[in-house]
Protein backbone atom coordinates (compact mmCIF):
# COMPACT_ATOMS: atom_id res chain seq x y z
CA UNK A 1 0.00 0.00 0.00
CA UNK A 2 2.67 2.38 1.02
CA UNK A 3 4.62 1.57 -2.05
CA UNK A 4 1.59 2.29 -4.10
CA UNK A 5 1.41 5.74 -2.57
CA UNK A 6 5.04 6.18 -3.28
CA UNK A 7 4.63 5.18 -6.90
CA UNK A 8 1.71 7.54 -7.15
CA UNK A 9 3.86 10.38 -5.90
CA UNK A 10 6.49 9.52 -8.44
CA UNK A 11 4.01 9.44 -11.28
CA UNK A 12 2.33 12.63 -10.19
CA UNK A 13 5.65 14.37 -9.95
CA UNK A 14 6.28 13.27 -13.49
CA UNK A 15 3.00 14.57 -14.68
CA UNK A 16 3.39 17.83 -12.85
CA UNK A 17 6.77 18.44 -14.29
CA UNK A 18 7.48 19.31 -17.83
CA UNK A 19 10.71 18.86 -19.61
CA UNK A 20 12.40 22.12 -18.84
CA UNK A 21 15.68 21.49 -20.48
CA UNK A 22 14.70 19.49 -23.47
CA UNK A 23 15.15 20.95 -26.88
CA UNK A 24 14.66 18.99 -30.03
CA UNK A 25 17.57 18.72 -32.39
CA UNK A 26 15.37 20.33 -34.99
CA UNK A 27 15.13 23.40 -32.83
CA UNK A 28 18.78 24.07 -32.29
CA UNK A 29 21.55 25.48 -34.37
CA UNK A 30 25.03 24.34 -33.61
CA UNK A 31 27.38 27.27 -33.35
CA UNK A 32 30.89 26.47 -34.46
CA UNK A 33 32.52 29.84 -34.70
CA UNK A 34 32.20 33.04 -32.73
CA UNK A 35 33.76 36.30 -33.79
CA UNK A 36 34.09 39.38 -31.62
CA UNK A 37 34.57 42.82 -33.11
CA UNK A 38 34.45 46.25 -31.54
CA UNK A 39 30.92 47.56 -31.79
CA UNK A 40 29.99 50.83 -33.32
CA UNK A 41 27.35 51.86 -30.85
CA UNK A 42 27.66 49.27 -28.16
CA UNK A 43 30.70 47.63 -26.70
CA UNK A 44 30.96 44.48 -28.83
CA UNK A 45 29.81 43.27 -32.15
CA UNK A 46 29.28 39.54 -32.03
CA UNK A 47 29.12 37.27 -35.06
CA UNK A 48 28.12 33.66 -34.76
CA UNK A 49 28.51 31.08 -37.48
CA UNK A 50 26.13 28.18 -37.10
CA UNK A 51 25.94 24.99 -39.07
CA UNK A 52 23.33 24.44 -41.68
CA UNK A 53 23.11 20.74 -41.00
CA UNK A 54 20.83 19.71 -43.84
CA UNK A 55 23.41 20.81 -46.36
CA UNK A 56 25.93 18.49 -44.81
CA UNK A 57 23.63 15.49 -45.00
CA UNK A 58 25.06 12.84 -47.26
CA UNK A 59 21.64 11.86 -48.54
CA UNK A 60 20.37 15.14 -49.82
CA UNK A 61 22.80 16.74 -52.21
CA UNK A 62 21.72 20.28 -51.84
CA UNK A 63 23.75 23.26 -52.84
CA UNK A 64 23.79 25.91 -50.22
CA UNK A 65 25.90 27.54 -47.62
CA UNK A 66 27.17 25.08 -45.01
CA UNK A 67 27.12 27.75 -42.35
CA UNK A 68 25.07 30.80 -41.78
CA UNK A 69 26.19 33.91 -39.98
CA UNK A 70 24.45 36.44 -37.82
CA UNK A 71 25.88 39.63 -36.41
CA UNK A 72 24.60 41.70 -33.54
CA UNK A 73 25.85 44.43 -31.26
CA UNK A 74 25.66 44.53 -27.53
CA UNK A 75 27.51 45.06 -24.29
CA UNK A 76 28.15 41.53 -23.17
CA UNK A 77 28.38 38.18 -24.86
CA UNK A 78 25.58 36.36 -23.04
CA UNK A 79 23.28 39.23 -23.73
CA UNK A 80 24.02 39.29 -27.44
CA UNK A 81 23.90 35.56 -27.86
CA UNK A 82 20.58 35.38 -26.09
CA UNK A 83 19.28 38.09 -28.36
CA UNK A 84 20.50 36.41 -31.54
CA UNK A 85 17.09 34.94 -32.11
CA UNK A 86 15.81 38.22 -33.41
CA UNK A 87 17.27 37.00 -36.65
CA UNK A 88 17.97 33.32 -36.15
CA UNK A 89 15.15 30.83 -36.14
CA UNK A 90 16.60 28.31 -33.75
CA UNK A 91 18.12 28.22 -30.33
CA UNK A 92 21.86 28.55 -30.54
CA UNK A 93 23.91 25.84 -28.92
CA UNK A 94 27.40 26.96 -28.04
CA UNK A 95 28.79 23.74 -26.70
CA UNK A 96 30.37 22.80 -29.98
CA UNK A 97 32.14 26.08 -30.59
CA UNK A 98 35.40 25.36 -32.33
CA UNK A 99 36.94 28.75 -32.79
CA UNK A 100 36.68 32.08 -31.07
CA UNK A 101 37.93 34.88 -33.31
CA UNK A 102 38.81 38.03 -31.47
CA UNK A 103 39.46 41.18 -33.40
CA UNK A 104 42.85 42.59 -32.56
CA UNK A 105 41.26 45.98 -31.95
CA UNK A 106 39.18 44.52 -29.16
CA UNK A 107 42.12 42.68 -27.76
CA UNK A 108 44.32 45.75 -27.89
CA UNK A 109 41.98 48.41 -26.59
CA UNK A 110 39.35 46.68 -24.57
CA UNK A 111 41.09 43.63 -23.30
CA UNK A 112 39.66 40.17 -23.49
CA UNK A 113 39.15 39.58 -19.78
CA UNK A 114 35.67 40.96 -19.60
CA UNK A 115 34.14 38.40 -21.88
CA UNK A 116 36.35 35.43 -21.10
CA UNK A 117 34.71 35.22 -17.70
CA UNK A 118 31.33 34.52 -19.21
CA UNK A 119 32.83 31.82 -21.38
CA UNK A 120 34.57 30.14 -18.49
CA UNK A 121 31.52 30.34 -16.26
CA UNK A 122 29.11 28.87 -18.75
CA UNK A 123 29.10 25.08 -18.54
CA UNK A 124 28.03 24.99 -22.17
CA UNK A 125 31.41 26.13 -23.31
CA UNK A 126 33.95 23.41 -23.40
CA UNK A 127 37.61 23.91 -23.07
CA UNK A 128 38.30 22.62 -26.53
CA UNK A 129 37.94 25.65 -28.75
CA UNK A 130 40.77 27.77 -30.08
CA UNK A 131 41.20 31.38 -29.18
CA UNK A 132 42.35 33.18 -32.29
CA UNK A 133 43.33 36.80 -32.63
CA UNK A 134 42.51 38.04 -36.09
CA UNK A 135 45.13 40.12 -37.80
CA UNK A 136 44.22 42.52 -40.55
CA UNK A 137 40.61 41.84 -41.42
CA UNK A 138 37.80 42.21 -38.96
CA UNK A 139 36.89 39.11 -37.07
CA UNK A 140 33.41 38.74 -38.48
CA UNK A 141 34.82 37.71 -41.84
CA UNK A 142 36.58 34.68 -40.49
CA UNK A 143 33.64 32.40 -39.82
CA UNK A 144 32.50 32.91 -43.39
CA UNK A 145 35.54 31.82 -45.38
CA UNK A 146 34.52 28.65 -47.19
CA UNK A 147 36.71 25.69 -47.70
CA UNK A 148 35.98 22.93 -50.20
CA UNK A 149 37.36 20.07 -48.11
CA UNK A 150 36.19 20.90 -44.65
CA UNK A 151 32.93 22.57 -45.35
CA UNK A 152 32.33 24.11 -41.96
CA UNK A 153 34.91 26.93 -41.75
CA UNK A 154 35.52 26.83 -38.03
CA UNK A 155 35.93 23.09 -38.05
CA UNK A 156 38.47 23.58 -40.79
CA UNK A 157 40.41 26.04 -38.69
CA UNK A 158 40.42 23.73 -35.75
CA UNK A 159 41.61 20.76 -37.75
CA UNK A 160 44.27 22.87 -39.35
CA UNK A 161 45.53 23.93 -35.96
CA UNK A 162 45.49 20.39 -34.70
CA UNK A 163 47.47 19.21 -37.69
CA UNK A 164 50.10 21.88 -37.54
CA UNK A 165 50.49 21.37 -33.83
CA UNK A 166 51.19 17.76 -34.48
CA UNK A 167 53.47 18.13 -37.46
CA UNK A 168 55.30 21.38 -37.11
CA UNK A 169 54.25 23.33 -34.07
CA UNK A 170 52.76 26.61 -35.24
CA UNK A 171 50.16 27.01 -32.57
CA UNK A 172 50.96 27.74 -28.94
CA UNK A 173 48.43 25.16 -27.72
CA UNK A 174 46.50 27.58 -25.65
CA UNK A 175 42.93 26.89 -24.67
CA UNK A 176 40.55 28.97 -22.68
CA UNK A 177 41.59 27.78 -19.25
CA UNK A 178 45.28 28.03 -20.06
CA UNK A 179 44.73 31.55 -21.22
CA UNK A 180 42.85 32.52 -18.10
CA UNK A 181 45.37 30.77 -15.89
CA UNK A 182 48.10 32.78 -17.55
CA UNK A 183 46.21 36.02 -16.99
CA UNK A 184 45.86 35.25 -13.31
CA UNK A 185 49.35 33.89 -12.91
CA UNK A 186 52.15 36.24 -11.91
CA UNK A 187 54.78 34.16 -13.56
CA UNK A 188 53.43 33.80 -17.06
CA UNK A 189 51.95 36.11 -19.64
CA UNK A 190 49.05 34.92 -21.74
CA UNK A 191 49.42 34.25 -25.42
CA UNK A 192 47.04 33.17 -28.11
CA UNK A 193 47.23 32.10 -31.68
CA UNK A 194 46.69 34.62 -34.43
CA UNK A 195 45.17 34.18 -37.84
CA UNK A 196 44.97 36.16 -41.05
CA UNK A 197 43.07 35.84 -44.25
CA UNK A 198 45.05 35.30 -47.41
CA UNK A 199 43.20 36.37 -50.52
CA UNK A 200 39.91 38.05 -50.94
CA UNK A 201 37.53 37.49 -48.02
CA UNK A 202 34.59 38.81 -50.01
CA UNK A 203 35.08 36.10 -52.60
CA UNK A 204 35.71 33.48 -49.95
CA UNK A 205 32.27 34.11 -48.53
CA UNK A 206 30.61 32.69 -51.60
CA UNK A 207 29.86 29.04 -51.68
CA UNK A 208 30.82 29.16 -55.35
CA UNK A 209 34.38 29.62 -54.20
CA UNK A 210 34.32 25.95 -53.35
CA UNK A 211 34.11 25.26 -57.04
CA UNK A 212 37.54 26.71 -57.63
CA UNK A 213 40.63 24.59 -57.33
CA UNK A 214 42.61 27.40 -55.79
CA UNK A 215 40.55 28.84 -53.02
CA UNK A 216 40.20 32.61 -53.41
CA UNK A 217 40.54 33.07 -49.67
CA UNK A 218 42.10 31.03 -46.96
CA UNK A 219 42.59 31.38 -43.26
CA UNK A 220 46.24 31.17 -42.35
CA UNK A 221 47.85 30.79 -39.01
CA UNK A 222 50.10 33.72 -38.23
CA UNK A 223 52.01 32.97 -35.08
CA UNK A 224 51.53 34.09 -31.54
CA UNK A 225 49.71 37.08 -30.17
CA UNK A 226 51.34 38.18 -26.94
CA UNK A 227 49.21 39.69 -24.19
CA UNK A 228 49.99 41.86 -21.30
CA UNK A 229 47.44 40.80 -18.75
CA UNK A 230 44.37 40.70 -20.93
CA UNK A 231 45.46 43.27 -23.49
CA UNK A 232 47.19 42.52 -26.74
CA UNK A 233 50.81 43.60 -26.76
CA UNK A 234 52.12 42.34 -30.07
CA UNK A 235 52.84 39.44 -32.34
CA UNK A 236 55.49 36.84 -32.85
CA UNK A 237 56.11 35.09 -36.13
CA UNK A 238 55.33 31.46 -36.88
CA UNK A 239 59.00 30.53 -36.53
CA UNK A 240 58.99 32.05 -33.08
CA UNK A 241 55.86 30.14 -32.27
CA UNK A 242 57.62 26.93 -33.04
CA UNK A 243 60.61 28.00 -30.98
CA UNK A 244 58.32 28.96 -28.15
CA UNK A 245 56.69 25.57 -28.30
CA UNK A 246 60.10 23.97 -28.26
CA UNK A 247 60.66 25.30 -24.82
CA UNK A 248 57.26 24.03 -23.72
CA UNK A 249 56.00 20.86 -25.26
CA UNK A 250 56.74 20.21 -28.89
CA UNK A 251 55.36 17.12 -30.50
CA UNK A 252 57.34 17.10 -33.72
CA UNK A 253 58.76 19.59 -36.13
CA UNK A 254 61.08 19.95 -39.04
CA UNK A 255 64.23 22.05 -39.05
CA UNK A 256 66.45 22.93 -41.93
CA UNK A 257 70.04 23.46 -40.97
CA UNK A 258 72.84 24.82 -43.17
CA UNK A 259 75.67 22.44 -43.81
CA UNK A 260 78.64 24.63 -43.00
CA UNK A 261 79.90 25.46 -39.58
CA UNK A 262 77.88 28.07 -37.90
CA UNK A 263 78.37 31.50 -39.37
CA UNK A 264 80.56 30.17 -42.09
CA UNK A 265 79.23 31.02 -45.54
CA UNK A 266 79.37 28.30 -48.10
CA UNK A 267 79.53 28.94 -51.78
CA UNK A 268 76.48 26.91 -52.42
CA UNK A 269 73.63 27.09 -49.96
CA UNK A 270 73.36 23.52 -48.81
CA UNK A 271 71.12 22.22 -46.09
CA UNK A 272 70.13 19.14 -44.26
CA UNK A 273 66.75 18.49 -42.70
CA UNK A 274 65.90 17.00 -39.41
CA UNK A 275 62.52 15.73 -38.39
CA UNK A 276 62.33 16.17 -34.66
CA UNK A 277 60.28 13.40 -33.19
CA UNK A 278 60.69 13.34 -29.50
CA UNK A 279 61.22 16.27 -27.26
CA UNK A 280 61.81 16.98 -23.69
CA UNK A 281 62.39 20.42 -22.35
CA UNK A 282 62.80 21.65 -18.82
CA UNK A 283 62.71 25.22 -17.73
CA UNK A 284 64.72 26.42 -14.80
CA UNK A 285 64.91 29.85 -13.28
CA UNK A 286 67.37 30.77 -10.62
CA UNK A 287 69.15 33.75 -9.20
CA UNK A 288 72.85 34.22 -9.08
CA UNK A 289 73.14 36.96 -6.57
CA UNK A 290 70.71 39.50 -7.87
CA UNK A 291 70.85 38.47 -11.47
CA UNK A 292 68.05 36.21 -12.70
CA UNK A 293 69.07 33.36 -14.94
CA UNK A 294 66.75 31.57 -17.30
CA UNK A 295 67.81 28.12 -18.26
CA UNK A 296 66.19 25.86 -20.78
CA UNK A 297 67.36 22.30 -21.25
CA UNK A 298 66.17 20.69 -24.40
CA UNK A 299 66.68 17.16 -25.45
CA UNK A 300 65.43 16.20 -28.89
CA UNK A 301 65.47 13.07 -30.92
CA UNK A 302 65.64 13.52 -34.64
CA UNK A 303 65.54 11.69 -37.89
CA UNK A 304 67.41 12.92 -40.89
CA UNK A 305 65.09 13.49 -43.78
CA UNK A 306 67.18 15.18 -46.42
CA UNK A 307 70.83 15.66 -46.99
CA UNK A 308 72.28 18.13 -49.38
CA UNK A 309 75.67 18.24 -47.77
CA UNK A 310 78.45 16.10 -48.87
CA UNK A 311 78.90 13.81 -45.94
CA UNK A 312 79.05 10.13 -45.40
CA UNK A 313 76.14 9.11 -43.29
CA UNK A 314 77.38 5.62 -42.74
CA UNK A 315 79.94 6.90 -40.29
CA UNK A 316 79.13 7.61 -36.71
CA UNK A 317 81.39 10.65 -36.66
CA UNK A 318 79.16 12.27 -39.24
CA UNK A 319 76.21 11.80 -36.96
CA UNK A 320 78.14 13.37 -34.14
CA UNK A 321 79.11 16.28 -36.29
CA UNK A 322 75.59 16.81 -37.55
CA UNK A 323 74.25 16.57 -34.04
CA UNK A 324 76.58 19.30 -32.88
CA UNK A 325 75.72 21.52 -35.79
CA UNK A 326 72.03 21.13 -35.32
CA UNK A 327 72.17 21.54 -31.56
CA UNK A 328 74.01 24.79 -32.03
CA UNK A 329 71.58 25.91 -34.68
CA UNK A 330 68.49 25.12 -32.67
CA UNK A 331 69.99 26.72 -29.62
CA UNK A 332 70.61 29.93 -31.45
CA UNK A 333 67.11 29.95 -32.80
CA UNK A 334 65.54 29.55 -29.41
CA UNK A 335 67.82 32.03 -27.73
CA UNK A 336 66.95 34.52 -30.42
CA UNK A 337 63.27 34.05 -29.78
CA UNK A 338 63.62 34.43 -26.05
CA UNK A 339 65.77 37.52 -26.47
CA UNK A 340 63.26 38.93 -28.87
CA UNK A 341 60.47 38.46 -26.38
CA UNK A 342 62.61 39.98 -23.66
CA UNK A 343 63.50 43.00 -25.69
CA UNK A 344 60.30 43.65 -27.56
CA UNK A 345 57.70 42.88 -24.95
CA UNK A 346 59.37 42.21 -21.65
CA UNK A 347 56.60 39.74 -20.97
CA UNK A 348 57.30 36.26 -19.72
CA UNK A 349 55.28 34.10 -22.04
CA UNK A 350 57.42 31.04 -21.35
CA UNK A 351 56.45 30.56 -17.78
CA UNK A 352 59.88 31.17 -16.30
CA UNK A 353 58.19 32.90 -13.41
CA UNK A 354 56.11 29.83 -12.72
CA UNK A 355 59.25 27.75 -12.83
CA UNK A 356 60.82 30.01 -10.24
CA UNK A 357 57.67 29.74 -8.21
CA UNK A 358 58.03 26.00 -8.19
CA UNK A 359 61.75 25.90 -7.65
CA UNK A 360 62.35 28.72 -5.27
CA UNK A 361 59.13 29.75 -3.66
CA UNK A 362 60.58 32.38 -1.31
CA UNK A 363 62.40 34.22 -4.04
CA UNK A 364 59.39 34.02 -6.31
CA UNK A 365 57.26 35.67 -3.67
CA UNK A 366 59.82 38.45 -3.45
CA UNK A 367 59.98 39.25 -7.11
CA UNK A 368 56.41 38.39 -7.96
CA UNK A 369 55.27 41.94 -8.41
CA UNK A 370 58.03 43.00 -10.76
CA UNK A 371 58.63 39.71 -12.44
CA UNK A 372 58.27 41.03 -15.97
CA UNK A 373 61.14 43.48 -15.47
CA UNK A 374 63.19 40.74 -13.91
CA UNK A 375 62.42 38.59 -16.89
CA UNK A 376 63.48 41.27 -19.32
CA UNK A 377 66.89 41.66 -17.75
CA UNK A 378 67.55 38.01 -17.13
CA UNK A 379 70.41 36.06 -18.66
CA UNK A 380 69.33 33.38 -21.03
CA UNK A 381 70.99 30.05 -21.18
CA UNK A 382 69.71 27.40 -23.51
CA UNK A 383 71.14 23.92 -23.70
CA UNK A 384 70.10 21.90 -26.65
CA UNK A 385 71.03 18.37 -27.36
CA UNK A 386 69.80 16.96 -30.60
CA UNK A 387 70.29 13.28 -31.01
CA UNK A 388 70.06 12.04 -34.58
CA UNK A 389 68.94 8.46 -34.56
CA UNK A 390 68.55 7.35 -38.11
CA UNK A 391 68.56 8.61 -41.62
CA UNK A 392 65.76 7.05 -43.54
CA UNK A 393 66.11 4.08 -45.83
CA UNK A 394 69.40 5.25 -47.36
CA UNK A 395 72.62 6.04 -45.65
CA UNK A 396 74.92 7.81 -48.05
CA UNK A 397 73.27 10.38 -50.21
CA UNK A 398 73.45 9.63 -53.90
CA UNK A 399 74.62 13.21 -54.29
CA UNK A 400 77.95 12.24 -52.82
CA UNK A 401 78.36 9.61 -55.47
CA UNK A 402 77.71 11.85 -58.42
CA UNK A 403 80.96 11.68 -60.39
CA UNK A 404 81.00 15.38 -61.24
CA UNK A 405 81.67 16.11 -57.65
CA UNK A 406 85.40 16.47 -57.45
CA UNK A 407 85.79 17.30 -53.86
CA UNK A 408 84.97 13.81 -52.72
Amino acid at each position, binding site marked *: *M*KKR*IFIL*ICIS*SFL*LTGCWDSTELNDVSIVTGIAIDPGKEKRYRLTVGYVNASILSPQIPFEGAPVSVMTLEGNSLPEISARMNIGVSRKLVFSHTRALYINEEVAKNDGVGSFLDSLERNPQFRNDFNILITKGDSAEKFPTINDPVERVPSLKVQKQIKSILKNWGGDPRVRLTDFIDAIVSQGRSPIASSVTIEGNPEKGKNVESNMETKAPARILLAGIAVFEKDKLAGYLSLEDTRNYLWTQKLESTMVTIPCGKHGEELKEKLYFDLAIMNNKSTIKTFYKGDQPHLKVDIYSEARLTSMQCNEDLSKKETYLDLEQKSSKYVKDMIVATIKKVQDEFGLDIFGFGEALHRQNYQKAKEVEEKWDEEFARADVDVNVHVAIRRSGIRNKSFLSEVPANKED
Partner: protein
Amino acid sequence: MVTFVYLVMYIGMLVLISLIDMFIWKQSFFQVILRLFTLDEGTNEWLIGGTVFIGFICSIVIDYRLRKNKGQKQL
Protein backbone atom coordinates in the same frame (compact mmCIF):
# COMPACT_ATOMS: atom_id res chain seq x y z
CA MET B 1 2.89 8.47 16.83
CA VAL B 2 4.37 8.77 13.37
CA THR B 3 2.54 12.04 12.97
CA PHE B 4 3.99 13.24 16.21
CA VAL B 5 7.48 12.28 15.15
CA TYR B 6 6.83 13.96 11.86
CA LEU B 7 5.83 17.21 13.52
CA VAL B 8 8.75 17.09 15.93
CA MET B 9 11.18 16.52 13.10
CA TYR B 10 9.59 19.17 10.94
CA ILE B 11 9.64 21.84 13.60
CA GLY B 12 13.05 20.75 14.80
CA MET B 13 14.46 20.96 11.32
CA LEU B 14 12.97 24.41 10.85
CA VAL B 15 14.43 25.62 14.10
CA LEU B 16 17.82 24.19 13.21
CA ILE B 17 17.84 25.76 9.78
CA SER B 18 16.75 29.10 11.13
CA LEU B 19 19.36 28.99 13.86
CA ILE B 20 22.02 28.48 11.26
CA ASP B 21 20.54 31.21 9.12
CA MET B 22 20.54 33.50 12.12
CA PHE B 23 24.22 32.81 12.54
CA ILE B 24 25.05 33.30 8.89
CA TRP B 25 22.89 36.33 8.12
CA LYS B 26 23.01 37.88 11.59
CA GLN B 27 19.27 38.27 11.65
CA SER B 28 16.68 37.78 14.33
CA PHE B 29 14.73 34.58 14.62
CA PHE B 30 11.50 36.01 13.27
CA GLN B 31 13.13 37.60 10.29
CA VAL B 32 14.63 34.26 9.41
CA ILE B 33 11.40 32.35 9.85
CA LEU B 34 9.63 34.91 7.74
CA ARG B 35 12.22 34.50 5.07
CA LEU B 36 11.93 30.75 5.13
CA PHE B 37 8.20 30.79 4.77
CA THR B 38 7.67 33.38 2.11
CA LEU B 39 7.07 31.47 -1.03
CA ASP B 40 8.95 33.30 -3.68
CA GLU B 41 6.54 33.87 -6.49
CA GLY B 42 7.38 32.15 -9.71
CA THR B 43 9.79 29.68 -8.20
CA ASN B 44 8.89 26.08 -7.78
CA GLU B 45 8.92 26.12 -4.01
CA TRP B 46 5.31 25.06 -3.97
CA LEU B 47 6.50 21.70 -5.29
CA ILE B 48 8.52 21.09 -2.21
CA GLY B 49 5.73 22.40 0.01
CA GLY B 50 3.39 19.97 -1.65
CA THR B 51 5.81 17.13 -1.04
CA VAL B 52 6.05 17.93 2.61
CA PHE B 53 2.31 18.07 2.82
CA ILE B 54 2.06 14.66 1.17
CA GLY B 55 4.53 13.43 3.77
CA PHE B 56 2.26 14.77 6.48
CA ILE B 57 -0.81 13.07 5.01
CA CYS B 58 1.20 9.89 4.70
CA SER B 59 2.20 9.93 8.31
CA ILE B 60 -1.43 10.37 9.34
CA VAL B 61 -2.46 7.46 7.13
CA ILE B 62 0.30 5.30 8.51
CA ASP B 63 -0.72 6.14 12.03
CA TYR B 64 -4.30 5.27 11.26
CA ARG B 65 -3.33 1.93 9.80
CA LEU B 66 -0.98 1.18 12.66
CA ARG B 67 -3.75 1.82 15.12
CA LYS B 68 -6.16 -0.32 13.13
CA ASN B 69 -3.69 -3.19 13.07
CA LYS B 70 -3.16 -2.86 16.76
CA GLY B 71 -6.87 -2.99 17.38
CA GLN B 72 -7.18 -6.10 15.28
CA LYS B 73 -4.42 -7.79 17.15
CA GLN B 74 -6.08 -7.04 20.46
CA LEU B 75 -9.34 -8.43 19.19
